[in-house]
């Protein structure tokens, strides 16, 4: 009886899976005969990556290729991302675009893709140079914006609007992430020349909104005199905005973010946020797929494909929103 129940149930569930899979546009085993490329992102619970997916899908349509989009449940789960890439290698995708969840940790699986002769385009977060060289892995291209430059841009903007006097708290991403580290470095280098701009606290909030809220709330408890917060992504900045209004300090603290997601643009328009750096993830997604398809066809691809970057303030928050 038991055996019967289980053996009936699992296939039933799996059938459901198959149906769900059938509904998914990206599914398929190459039955269409078109070449298939994959985009593996960190997670899907960040609008940044949703925008990236949108750009990638548009490019895939234009280039007439099948696109598979996959991501781990959590941005921190490198091992799961590694599994996804391994599985896609098994599914013989023609090329792979990957936003690494860990700049060192994904190196081995890029090596596996090399061995399977599947070209890999790295998107948004660079591979750790040393780890990649040591392992001898090759990537077709890197597509992304210069995070260090972005950090610099927003730092320079702060020096200008604050007239050289500010007490700053930084909300970092996940420690050891190349992306966040570069943004912080750029920001710090930009304010180096202004002794009046001091960093009084710098804490990781792991890219997440709730943690941005909590961490900044705690920072406010310890440093009531803070007048600026720089969050390494907009999600954390939005969390910080909530913490500010909860503390009754709305309008008294400058909020600087990164990524220019829609919610952040709206917050800037509404005057709740000061500035952010536009990253254009949809362009990243498009460029990544274009590069991947070229690499798949054996065409030459530039090793570094820069995606534009720009400062978003109240002046251009609505106007610059050209991605819709």
């Amino acid at each position, binding site marked *: 009886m038991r055996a019967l*129940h289980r053996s009936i*149930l699992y296939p039933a569930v799996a059938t459901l899976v198959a149906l769900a*899979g059938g509904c998914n546009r990206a599914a398929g085993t190459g039955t269409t005969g078109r070449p298939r490329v994959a985009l593996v992102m960190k997670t899907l619970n960040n609008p940044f990556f949703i925008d990236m997916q949108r750009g990638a899908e548009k490019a895939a349509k234009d280039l007439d290729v099948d696109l598979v989009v996959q991501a781990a449940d959590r941005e921190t789960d490198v091992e799961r991302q590694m599994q996804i890439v391994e599985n896609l290698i098994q*599914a013989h995708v023609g090329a792979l675009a990957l936003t690494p969840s860990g700049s060192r940790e994904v190196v081995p699986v890029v090596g596996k893709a090399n061995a399977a002769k599947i070209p890999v385009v790295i998107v948004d977060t660079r591979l750790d140079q040393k780890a990649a060289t040591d392992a001898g892995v090759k990537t077709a291209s890197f597509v992304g914006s210069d995070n260090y430059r972005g950090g610099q841009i927003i730092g320079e903007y702060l020096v200008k609007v604050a007239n050289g006097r500010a007490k700053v708290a930084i909300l970092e991403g996940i420690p050891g992430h190349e992306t966040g580290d570069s943004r912080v470095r750029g920001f710090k280098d930009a304010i180096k020349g202004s002794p009046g701009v001091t960093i009084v606290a710098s804490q990781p909030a792991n890219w997440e909104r709730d943690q941005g809220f909590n961490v900044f709330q705690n920072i406010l408890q310890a440093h009531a005199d803070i007048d600026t917060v720089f969050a390494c992504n907009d999600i954390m900045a939005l969390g910080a905005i909530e913490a500010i209004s909860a503390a009754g300090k709305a309008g008294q603290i400058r909020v600087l973010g990164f990524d220019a997601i829609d919610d952040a643009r709206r917050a800037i328009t509404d005057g709740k946020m000061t500035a952010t750096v536009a990253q254009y993830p949809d362009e990243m997604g498009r460029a990544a797929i274009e590069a991947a398809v070229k690499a798949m066809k054996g065409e030459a691809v530039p090793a570094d494909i820069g995606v534009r970057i720009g400062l978003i303030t109240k002046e251009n928050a609505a106007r610059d929103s050209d991605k819709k």
Partner: protein
Amino acid sequence: MRHRLSASGRRLGTLAGLFGLGVLLWALTPHFLTVSNLLNVLEQTSINAVIAAGMTFVIISAGIDLSVGSLVAVAGVVLASTLHAGMPITIALAASLAVGFAFGLLNGLAITWGRLPPFIATLGMMSIARGCALLFTEGRPVSGFDPAFRSIATARLLGIPAPVFVTIAVYLMAHFVLAETRFGRYVYSMGGNEEATRLSGVNVRLHKTLVYGVSGLASAVAAVLLTARLNSAQPIAGIMYELDAIAATVIGGTSLMGGEGGLGGTIIGALIMGVLRNGLNLLGVSSFVQQIVIGLVIVFAVLIDTVLKARKG
């Protein structure tokens, strides 16, 4: 003999579920039933399977261990730092296993001597161990090891990845301990009726503490595999691994009430989860749908047990 049949019958049912899933995936995608993909699934399943082996001990003893994911992180960063300090691999492995075992024992002590419910004690440890890993590394991953160490994950014997052998070894050993040794008997007895076991002269405190030590040890073995696989030990590794391990264990038919179950079921449970994830990737199913499907499988597997038990009376 009926009782015997029902226990192994359940395992056969789970096995049939795994087989049915395999047949379905075979029908749906040509990429599933290939030697390289099956080896790939086995390799991917190894980490969860090893953690779940330890979890099986804990759950049979009527406990729960929520700290395994954090213990993976602690054991991993200790391993990595020891290697980076230039120690030989054997020393680093020993240090990492010892740390996993020791943290596990601390769980056990909090439960037996501190009389904390396992849920609370290991919930605390989940945070404590995670904090230790972050503190120890200042939040940064420790990466880059020499190929000899990495071969734990990368080596192939007869084309089969090394982690698969590690997993098989862990299960053979764990099964032997659970089925053939005094300690294994006590694990079942404590889970089935702790007071009767104590009154039979068994040192329940000691053996229960050891159960959590075993779970910590299994987490450390998983940490070795993970670190070798990623060529990096992250202090944020293993977040929510406890849930996958618990899921594999209960899908395998081990009762959360304790006293029943076994490793044969757990390995099948882990494989079901691994095959399911692999298949969903191969089919290109959206990440969101994947989460729903995995959740449904866990709930249905346990639901069937509950329904069957209720009907049995």
